[in-house]
């Protein structure tokens, strides 16, 4: 079969024709290149239609899914003749009268060019995210620009232009846009006490690219105490201390717990080698805690009269003895069961030791608050002729008592002569021949006064019951009292009783906080006292009532602390560092730094 194929291509109004001849028994049309007549449009099947000739009749046959229409009618097979019009997918085929030498002739035209429909569809279909207008580049620029503007440029401009002002008194900070921008740079939570000016960065950060100056701190903290006494000879460490600034040990933006950097390294920098760098220092070297920390040294009074104190190491077999100038025995007071005959119950620690406000330590013990209730009777000399009603001698000024007694007898002499009072004789056991009324009155007054003072300062039931005198071996030299009192001036006040120097802290270099150990019993640490409270009066003997001896103190050694406290990195013990027990700024050493003298 010889078929003449004419391909028509329209370009605007022009029609281009391209003719060729195909010779085959069966002519197939389709997208496949094996077809006798390949049709290149994508919409047409690989094998779409076949044209055959049988008995001079032409027949078309649908081969695939591509719709075939002959003269508008969908068909699978149909006989065709010149003049018939065939729609094969997007192609229009038309049979014409065959020229000479041909069995058939037909023209083929792509009547529904893909271009229109396809291009339109492709145009409508926004496939891929880039087609939606999203742009990685644009959003990258916008995002990065916004971050730089909001979090870099604006804060710097606000700071540089002085818009972020330092905190001012009576001008509370409000959280506005400026403050929000400033706080965007905040590197961490503020300490609670500084939060009220947290947004006023310039209160502390006066200049950029430098640390916070001491000046900023001292604007408020001008009373901050020194670390060492101004007279201490610590060699080069004094300069080192002077050169260190507040931020060396204090750091803000570290959370509500505060600004103190409690790292032991800061203290150990100097304290680990004090004996080398500051040989005149009284302190021992410390290389850490618990290992490397020296044994505690209790400060005890060795001579209350002078006075003299010394630091004695704890933890030895023989505990340090305190001599505060008082004949006092804890054991005698804590005796189990108390003193029923006198109607006194057993004393407990809290009967005499009252916590300070805040609970750190205890209020000083004194006669009026802690002793008088039971020991008033030691100062009552009933029947004795004394200036006070019922012979009740007041507790207090020794010079005053001497003067009062002397004046009492002087007044009596002035009124009508001094006689030896029988009662006084009886009470004091003073015998001897009767005094002559004609004797020198001044001498007589002195005699009477001295006799009375011997009674008052008696060691069995007078002042000497608890106190030591200034005489030899703690005796009271009553003969010396009258002339000494007579010569007393406002500036020079004689003392006949050794001053009492009760300490409320035996480890004054540390700040043991009793309130933070309130869950414990006193005896957990003060074990000697706890043991004493278990001794009944019957087995107590006559240890101290008549011959009191200075008693050992009961302050626990470092081993008691290290049972619960570990170093700063401790995990299974309480993490403790230098400042857990010690204070850096010591009020007793004066102001550390004058705000006007601060250069950095």
């Amino acid at each position, binding site marked *: 079969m010889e078929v003449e194929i004419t391909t028509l291509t329209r370009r605007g109004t022009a029609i281009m024709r391209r003719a060729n001849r195909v010779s085959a028994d069966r002519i197939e049309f389709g997208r496949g290149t094996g077809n006798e007549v390949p049709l290149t449009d*994508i*919409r047409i099947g690989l094998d779409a239609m076949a044209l055959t000739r049988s008995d001079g009749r032409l027949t078309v046959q649908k081969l695939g899914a591509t*719709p075939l229409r002959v003269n508008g009618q*969908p068909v699978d097979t149909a006989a065709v003749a010149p003049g018939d019009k065939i*729609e094969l*997918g*997007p192609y229009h085929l038309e049979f014409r009268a065959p020229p000479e030498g041909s069995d058939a002739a037909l023209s083929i035209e792509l009547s*529904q060019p*893909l271009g229109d*429909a*396809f291009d*339109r*569809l492709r145009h*409508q*279909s*926004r*496939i*891929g*995210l880039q087609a*939606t207008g*999203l742009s*990685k580049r644009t*959003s*990258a*620029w*916008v*995002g*990065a620009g*916004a*971050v*730089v503007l909001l*979090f*870099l440029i604006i804060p*710097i401009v606000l*700071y540089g232009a002085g818009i972020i002002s330092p905190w001012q008194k009576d001008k509370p900070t409000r959280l506005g846009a400026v403050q929000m921008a400033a706080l*965007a*740079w*905040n*590197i*961490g939570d503020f300490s609670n006490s500084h939060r009220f000016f947290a947004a006023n*960065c310039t209160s502390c*950060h006066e200049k*950029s*690219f*430098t*640390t*916070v100056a001491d000046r900023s701190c001292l604007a408020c903290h001008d009373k901050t105490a020194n670390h060492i006494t101004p007279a201490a000879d610590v060699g080069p460490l004094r300069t080192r201390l002077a050169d260190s600034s507040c*931020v*060396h040990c204090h*750091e*803000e933006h*570290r*959370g509500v*717990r505060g600004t103190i*950097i*409690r*790292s*032991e390294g800061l203290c150990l920098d100097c304290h680990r080698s004090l004996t080398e760098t500051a040989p005149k220092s009284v302190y021992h070297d410390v290389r850490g805690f618990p290992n490397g920390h020296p044994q505690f040294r209790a400060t005890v009074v060795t001579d209350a009269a002078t006075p003299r104190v010394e630091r004695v190491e704890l933890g030895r077999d023989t505990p340090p003895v305190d001599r505060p100038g008082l004949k006092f025995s804890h054991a005698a007071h804590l005796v189990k069961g108390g003193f029923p005959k006198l109607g006194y119950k057993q004393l407990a620690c809290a009967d005499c030791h009252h916590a300070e406000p805040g609970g750190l330590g205890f209020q000083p013990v004194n006669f009026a608050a802690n002793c008088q209730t039971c020991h008033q009777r030691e100062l009552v000399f009933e029947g004795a002729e004394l200036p006070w009603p019922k012979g009740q001698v007041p507790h207090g000024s020794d010079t005053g008592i001497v003067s009062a007694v002397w004046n009492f007898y002087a007044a009596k002499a002035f009124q009508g002569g001094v006689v030896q009072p029988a009662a006084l004789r009886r009470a004091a056991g003073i015998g001897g021949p009767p005094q002559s009324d004609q004797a020198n009155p001044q001498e007589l007054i002195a005699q009477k006064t001295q006799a009375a003072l011997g009674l008052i300062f008696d060691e069995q039931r007078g002042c000497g019951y608890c106190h030591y005198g200034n005489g030899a071996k703690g005796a009271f030299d009553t003969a010396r009292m009258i002339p000494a009192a007579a010569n007393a001036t406002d500036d020079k006040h004689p003392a006949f009783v050794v001053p009492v120097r009760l300490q409320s802290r035996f480890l004054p270099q540390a700040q043991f906080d009793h309130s933070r150990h309130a869950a414990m019993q006193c005896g957990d640490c003060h074990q000697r006292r706890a043991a004493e409270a278990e001794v009944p009066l019957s087995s107590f003997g006559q240890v101290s009532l008549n011959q009191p001896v200075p008693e050992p103190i009961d302050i626990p050694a470092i081993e008691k602390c290290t049972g619960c406290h570990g170093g*700063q990195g401790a995990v299974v013990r309480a993490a403790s*560092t230098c400042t857990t027990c010690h204070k850096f700024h010591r009020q007793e050493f004066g102001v550390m730094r004058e705000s006007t003298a601060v250069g950095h």
Partner: protein
Amino acid sequence: MSVSDQLAAAGVNRTERHQSFLVYGGFFYLKIAFAVMLASLILYIVDRPYGGRYGGTWAGYILGIAGAGLIVWLTWFGYRKRSYVDLHGRLVSRLSAHVYLGLALLVVATLHTGFEFGWNVHTLAYALMVLVIASGVFGIFTYGRYPALMTENRGNLTTHEMLSRIAGLNDELRNAAVPLDDATATLVERAVETTDVGGSPWRQLSGKYPGCATEAALAGIATAERNVPPELEEAYRGVHVLLDNKRALLRQIRLDTSYKAMMEVWLYVHVPVTFALLAALLAHVVSVLFFIPVAIRG
């Protein structure tokens, strides 16, 4: 010179070229990443400042510098990775390093923070970094999951071919709908005119096209067919078949679009947020240095 030619020229054998970036070089970069993470962890544990760890201790500074260095390097790496010109066969190697060291960065930077977060530029930088890493991880997930699904769904057709077929179906529908009643013909015409493929990012990602005109036309013709005169039954059936074919193609191409969008979308987070992160990192570093807070603490 094609990429494969370049790879060949660089002496990279075929097996190596086709190795996944995840297993590249016997997990070489995974090992490096583990080493980095382990070193960071040791540094973090060894440094025990009193009062808690944070970015301002000596270990914190080391981790911070390492983290910042990694961020800049990974960004540069990501940028260079796009360039095929200069690969010399290192594409897989680069991608492997980018992925594993990017994951290691999460550990380094997290330890740098000391787990201290707040409403500030520093935590912003960290949050952006986490977002970048998370989007990258999602990217790895999509690269592992969607190519196989795409192949399965496409059935050897390209997007171009699918669209061509739909366009052809549209043409056929337009012709075939001629004998239909006006209402149905209008529905078919609408289906032809409004062929929704792609569109907004959400449509592309979800693959859901509510109000699809083809679906509406199918519903319309199903109703119309009940009362159609016998002589037109075939015409209706023809259009119905065409619409069914179009719906099947639409489902295919929409699913394809959705897969493609899933494989692309992470980059629209990964890349812009990386640049926002670089900006935040700059602000973070400048703000810290601006008020050098204190000496490094031991």
